[in-house]
């Protein structure tokens, strides 16, 4: 019996291979999309980690020689023996690569190559010959050096790491180190540093350069969109399963009438679906792999992260990755099938097979659905203004999405009714009415299209906004071509004397920790220069903020201080006894504390004891390398004290460009999936629609006209869906940037709009819908008149 029943059930798929294909393809694509977004995430994470390493290298306090010279190795040993947990670092250049020598036995976790503490063979690292870690480009200059290269794509570009002993040998500097990194946790007692090593000065860790929060925010948003992509796929699967169930009602009825117990039937159908989910899941994970391999240039790094490539470089699919992909496929199928199975369970034994039951039931369902949509959107509206936690933020996101999708048929139906009322020609009225009548059968596909477009609008807005913000932030913070740190006043003077003729301007960077409105704040004294005027963007600002700051009357504060202290633009704050007006509020991403900017002169008056030892150098195009050489060779500044912002910026842009390639590809893919769903729905509906088209044909509308009307209808529905999708997508992006992000990190990412992107997207959606409608339309145009005539002879 079971076997017979199974073969009866499976015969449906044999007779409807396209439906089987839709189901499998929808599920596989959903899983692949999910995998693909995970791939982007992993890629971005690896790259940002490397970027963050480059930017925040000075996250620990450091000890350096007061005169900027090398530290004798003996000083390191006597510090250790005095109870100071410090770790030696030596730096130098090999070709264009900055070679950094570290001691892995004493290094704090946060310095050095990303994974040295983990998997690396430290024995080989410590050996006499040694190993050097870096990207392929960074290791190129080591071809002629007696050391074993180890390519690690996650190491920041232009830097190579090796053991300190090996570095001393390569650099020809035996017995010397450049700086000592001070561990965060020190023993309960230590010898006095001033007695132990009077020549050393302690350079505090540089705060505020940590981009980790910014990247965490990016990952959170991308993950949310990964789920969204999956939701699109689930809608498609839901549609396919719903159709299959509908069409198999006669089979089910017959089987049950023959004595098949309902429970066993349900189990059979459930098993059938799970088997399909397994197949589709495997295909989906494999497609995710292909997407990752095809789209990401840093394949080694990414696949390493995603699929757990082993040390030798052969690929292994990581079990957890498979599991998450399969869980998503199985869970998605279960969600999509739950409703259909529920209906099946409640179906009366001898309920008539109703070819149009779906459309009929849809009428009743539409009311429930409409009520649900209004409820969810209402909830979303309440949450939008009151959500103050991560969970509430995601609840907002979820209710907005589902509510928007459920509301779509209702909105379309009303628009179409409105169109019908305004139409005066007979054909026109028939067109509107017929479109509306067709809506229930297409609504799932249209919802998928809606979610796909909303997701695309959201992804584009989010990624582009993030890019603008991040690049703006880097421009603002790293506007100068080179950043230099001097060790003392003498070296500062040498720097100014020697470098002034070589550069456009030297911008001192000086700060003092003072409370503003009871909040600890780092106040910077900034020189009035175009570098700042041109590059800094404000969240809010009065007119001419820099003029007011330069006049010593105003202050600029960061968003964190603004939010935490509840300040407003134009407020007057007290800074070390001076009253200043807030002239501008700037974004300061990833900085945990308050920050403010005042003029250089005012700063010097308020804090005369502070002498700047960090400088930004504005250098004409092409002069950066010569100036860098002068700094190291003539002024004697160690290479590690010079940061080349162009390198960091180019690296970040490269990361973004890679991310863009992948998100664009995913966008196209999502749209293709939605278009595919429309195609499948139209094909399924086509046969059912003959009875509705036949009268139109009978009264004189040609088949060709009917075909064109089909295409026009699909485009109309897609256009209407696009109109709904745009605000939904923008709301999504806003929810992520301004609600979820604030809940998670305490600052909002500014949202930028990209109308041309949206227009292009809308066009794509119309094209996708038109292409999807083309084949059914052609088939319709070629329907033999005999088939149309049969409608009138076959009384149904």
């Amino acid at each position, binding site marked *: 019996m079971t076997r017979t029943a199974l073969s009866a059930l499976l015969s449906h798929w044999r007779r409807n291979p396209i439906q089987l294909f839709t189901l499998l393809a929808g599920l596989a694509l959903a899983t692949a999309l999910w995998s693909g977004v995970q791939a982007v995430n992993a890629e971005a994470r690896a790259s940002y980690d490397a970027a963050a390493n480059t930017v925040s290298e000075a996250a620990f306090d450091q000890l350096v020689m007061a005169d900027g010279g090398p530290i004798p*190795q*003996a000083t*390191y*040993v006597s510090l*250790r*023996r*005095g*109870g100071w*947990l410090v770790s030696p670092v030596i730096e130098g250049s090999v070709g264009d690569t900055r070679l950094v020598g570290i*001691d892995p*036995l*004493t290094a704090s976790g946060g310095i050095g190559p990303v994974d040295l503490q983990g998997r690396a*063979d*430290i*024995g*080989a690292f*410590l*050996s*006499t010959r*040694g190993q050097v870690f870096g990207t392929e480009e960074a290791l190129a200059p080591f071809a002629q050096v007696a050391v074993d290269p180890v390519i690690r794509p996650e190491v920041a570009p232009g830097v190579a790491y090796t*053991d*300190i*002993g*090996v570095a*001393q040998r390569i650099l020809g500097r*035996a017995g010397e180190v450049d700086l000592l990194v001070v561990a965060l*946790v*020190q*023993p*309960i*007692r*230590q*010898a006095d540093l001033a007695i132990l090593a009077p020549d050393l000065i302690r350079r505090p860790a540089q705060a505020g350069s940590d981009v980790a929060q910014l990247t965490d925010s990016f990952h959170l948003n991308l993950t949310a969109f990964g789920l969204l992509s999956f939701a699109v796929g689930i809608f498609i699967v839901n549609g396919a399963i719903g159709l299959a169930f509908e069409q198999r009602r006669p089979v089910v009825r017959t089987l049950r009438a023959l004595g098949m117990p309902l429970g066993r039937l349900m189990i059979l159908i459930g098993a059938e679906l799970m088997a399909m989910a397994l197949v589709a899941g495997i295909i989906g994970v494999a497609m995710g792999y292909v997407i990752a391999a095809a789209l990401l240039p840093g394949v080694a790094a990414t696949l390493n992260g995603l699929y757990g490539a082993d040390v030798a470089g052969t690929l292994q699919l990581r079990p957890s990755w498979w599991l998450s992909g399969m869980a998503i496929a199985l869970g998605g199928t279960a969600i999509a099938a739950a409703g259909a199975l529920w209906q099946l369970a409640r179906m009366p034994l001898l309920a008539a097979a109703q070819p149009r039951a779906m459309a009929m039931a849809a009428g009743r369902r539409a009311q429930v659905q409409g009520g649900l949509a209004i409820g969810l959107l209402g909830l979303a509206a309440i949450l939008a203004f009151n959500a103050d936690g991560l969970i509430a933020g995601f609840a907002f996101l979820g209710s907005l999405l589902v509510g928007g999708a459920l509301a779509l048929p209702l909105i379309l139906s009303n628009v179409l009714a409105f169109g019908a009322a305004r139409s005066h020609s007979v054909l026109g009225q028939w067109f509107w009415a017929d479109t509306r009548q067709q809506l229930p059968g297409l609504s799932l596909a249209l919802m998928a299209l809606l979610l796909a477009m909303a997701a695309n609008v959201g992804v584009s807005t989010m990624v582009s906004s993030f890019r603008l913000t991040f690049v703006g932030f880097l421009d603002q913070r790293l506007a100068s071509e080179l950043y230099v740190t001097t060790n003392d006043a003498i070296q500062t003077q040498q720097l100014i004397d020697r470098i002034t003729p070589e550069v456009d301007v030297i911008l001192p960077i000086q700060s003092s920790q003072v409370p503003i409105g009871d909040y600890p704040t780092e106040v910077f004294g900034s020189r009035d220069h175009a570098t700042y005027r041109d590059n800094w963007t404000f969240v809010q600002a009065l007119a001419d903020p820099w003029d007011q700051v330069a006049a010593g009357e105003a202050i600029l504060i960061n968003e964190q201080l603004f939010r935490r202290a509840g300040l407003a633009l134009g407020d007057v704050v007290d800074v070390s006894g001076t009253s200043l007006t807030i002239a501008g509020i700037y974004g300061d991403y990833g900085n945990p504390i308050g920050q403010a900017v005042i003029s250089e002169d005012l700063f010097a008056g308020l804090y005369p004891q502070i002498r700047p030892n960090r400088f930004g150098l504005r250098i004409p195009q092409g002069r950066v390398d010569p100036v860098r050489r002068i700094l190291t060779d003539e002024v004697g500044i160690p290479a590690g004290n010079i940061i080349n912002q162009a390198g960091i910026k180019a690296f970040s842009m490269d990361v973004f460009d890679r991310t863009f390639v992948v998100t664009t590809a995913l966008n196209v893919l999502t749209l293709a999936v939605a278009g595919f769903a429309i195609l499948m729905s139209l094909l399924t509906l086509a046969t059912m629609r003959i009875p509705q088209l036949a009268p139109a044909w009978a009264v004189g509308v040609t088949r060709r006209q009917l075909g064109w009307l089909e295409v026009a209808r699909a485009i109309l529905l897609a256009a209407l869906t696009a109109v709904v999708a745009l605000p939904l997508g923008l709301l999504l992006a806003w929810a992520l940037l301004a609600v979820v992000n604030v809940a998670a990190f305490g600052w909002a990412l500014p949202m930028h709009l990209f109308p041309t992107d949206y227009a292009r997207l809308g066009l794509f959606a119309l094209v996708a819908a038109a292409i999807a409608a083309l084949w059914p339309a052609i088939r319709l145009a070629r329907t033999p008149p005999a088939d149309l005539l049969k409608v009138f002879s076959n009384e149904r």
Partner: protein
Amino acid sequence: MSVNNRIMVCLVVCLIAGQTAAQGFAGLGMDAEGFAIPQPDPTFDFPTDHGPHPDYRIEWWYLTANMTGPDGTDYGLQWTLFRSALAPQAGEGWSAPQLWLGHAAVTTPTDHYVTERIARGGIGQAGAVPDPFSAWIDDWALTGDWQTLSMTATGPDFGYDVDLTAQGPLIFHGDGGYSVKSASGQASYYYSQPFFALDGTLSLQDGDIPVTGQAWLDREWSSQPLSADQTGWDWFSLSFDDGSKMMGFLLRQTDGASYSSATWITPEGQTTAYPNGAFAADPLETSATSGATVPTTWRVQLPDRGVDVTVSAINTDAWMTTSVPYWEGPVRVTGSHAGRGYLEMTGYE
């Protein structure tokens, strides 16, 4: 002393070195490539043998102490310096193949403070010299002429400075200092100074505490002391109130059996070595610690000396959160003999 733990610690260093990576724990029993191997009937030469033996793969200076504060509170401390050679040679500079690892701990009835250091010997950051004797890593040091020694260590939340005065002779375990560790003959050189009187200061977060007590210093070196089927180690150093002392250990095997060894020490320092089987230790109670669940109350017997005692941990959570975790802490002894001592347990998962 706690060979197993020390071996495991050294194993980690070896693993780090990538030399025995593929061999795992069993690698300890295998041929020592190029390293010297302990031979029976050793002749020791002091003070030279107080210093390092770079021809042997592993070596340690291992001190434990039972102490009492002014209010009668019991304390325990540990000071350990391990040497692990990547190759059988000394040398200077960063690439010299001698690595050093330090463990220090203070145990109170309620807390257990642990810290660890690791360094290379070739640059002078860690090492040992016999005459005048000194063993050190960073600011930790054990210095003196073995009649008196001073010892110091610091961690993020504790430190100590103590003076040790020998009140008895050196003790040689096994056959005149040749200590067999398995039925198949793996062995080490092993001697102790269990007669140190201790006087010093513990620095804890609440302030300094003057302490007095007794300490036990172990010296051991080898190149392949364990056999492949040995999984863990329970080691006891007990000082009885009548002045006699006992060192005993069980090396647990994969088949459930164990290999035991013990040394009985009279108050005058005369020793009797007991072969496998004479010494017995059976768990009575286990405790969940910050790491594994381990036996913290034992029945310990040496029938030949009429010893049948209960050994219980002063602080059951004396878990060493070092790169190779293990349990090491002070114990109280009751039963046929009363006293105190130290217990070390390794290989518990």
